[in-house]
């Protein structure tokens, strides 16, 4: 079970798609611009258009679609609940009724808008940032002026969360080998509580070792940033196109 997790500390993406050729900073800014603009739109038609554009970004990024399926199917329970309830909880002219509950047109429209918006944003984040290695994202955020300490926190998390995850799997394997079955019993919970505690003890010990090793090598609180990401012509073209498209959409939305 352990060991199968991909190494999340790669600094390069493997896919050479048009999106992957862009500077991570351009992609980060474009994503934020896209999501912010979609949320500002009043017109449902334009939000649907945004969904189509986000779908296009995914094709452009040439990412394995397995990851996308996971994302789209991972609709949290509460979201389904929200969408299912909206038509019935919004006052308005009744459209159809299930038993005593009448669904309003306004409510149905609201639910559709919500579903379109959430999917447009999810697709855009996946298309523009999905292929990026987390380390690249951290360095891009640092270059864009994110607080260095926050970036450190992010980079350490990227490095160690996978490591401790395999550690947890190893400990669980060891427990299973001794006949442990996680069940809702006092023993089951106590064992899992001890497992959680043990993981924290190990992470503190690991943290102290890493801390010493870093100070040994003269760590002064600054991590060098990755070279190689450069704002080029492709970024200029993509950035300008995104800017014009988003501005035009927002203007069209206000005029409509």
């Amino acid at each position: 079970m352990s060991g199968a997790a991909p190494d999340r500390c790669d600094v390069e993406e493997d896919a050479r798609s048009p999106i992957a050729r862009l500077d991570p900073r351009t992609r980060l800014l474009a994503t934020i611009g896209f999501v912010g603009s979609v949320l500002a739109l009043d017109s449902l038609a334009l939000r649907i258009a945004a969904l189509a554009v986000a779908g296009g970004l995914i094709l452009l990024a040439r990412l394995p679609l397995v990851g996308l399926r996971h994302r789209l199917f991972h609709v949290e329970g509460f979201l389904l609940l929200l969408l299912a309830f909206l038509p019935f909880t919004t006052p308005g002219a009744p459209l159809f009724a299930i038993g005593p509950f009448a669904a309003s047109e306004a409510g149905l429209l609201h639910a559709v808008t919500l579903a379109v918006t959430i999917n447009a944003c999810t697709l855009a984040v996946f298309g523009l940032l999905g292929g990026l290695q987390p380390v690249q994202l951290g360095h891009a955020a640092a270059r864009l002026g994110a607080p260095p300490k926050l970036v450190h926190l992010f980079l350490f998390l990227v490095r160690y969360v996978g490591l401790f995850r395999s550690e947890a799997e190893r400990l669980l394997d060891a427990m299973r080998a001794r006949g442990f079955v996680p069940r809702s019993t006092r023993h089951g919970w106590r064992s899992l509580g001890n497992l959680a505690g043990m993981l924290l003890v190990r992470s503190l010990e690991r943290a102290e070792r890493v801390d010493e090793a870093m100070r040994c090598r003269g760590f002064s609180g600054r991590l060098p940033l990755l070279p190689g990401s450069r704002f080029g012509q492709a970024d200029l073209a993509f950035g300008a196109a995104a800017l014009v498209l988003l501005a035009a959409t927002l203007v069209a939305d206000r005029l409509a």
Partner: protein
Amino acid sequence: MAHIPDGVLSMPVLVGGGIVAAIGTAIALRRLDERTIPRAAIMAAGFFAVSLVAVPVGPSSVHLLMAGLMGLVIGVVAIPAVLVGLLLQAVLFGFGGLTTLGVNTANIALPGVLLAALFAPVIARAPANRAGLLGGLCGALSVAATGGGVALALALSDSTYVPSAKIILATYVPLMIGEGIITGFAIAFLKRVKPELLDIGWRHRAAEG
């Protein structure tokens, strides 16, 4: 569970959550220097690994939020730790959203930090079993507060969300139970095995007081 995606909440709620998370993050980062940051960051990774373990509650199982335990161990640093954790999840797995990072951070981390500020001094003096009991209470209450925060964020965004928000609040009950029990046993374990771990985040308070 508490990962609200982009597009659901209203602008004032997003801005409000963003401001709360930004203030909490700024306070926590001011307390960290280059000597303490690697340790805090690696501990944060440990918490996220724990939250990936499925815990059985009755017939189903839940993934813990770990906010109470995190607050008790690393204190206010839990806020930026949760923030970067949510960013990683949003980009890597598509859980949660970008514009909701602030609201989600505030909902998940703030209850744990505030409750831990109340519980940590008592737990530091209590024997292992009572510390476990108090820790469990701290963990369960922070999940309840997280559920309340999610429901509140929805209800404030749109009045038509209110009925769903009430049901969502009810879905937090199994998580509350699982989180309370596991946090309690973990605290009792730490109290016996490595008590100094329990006051990393709150040591400066003891020094001041």
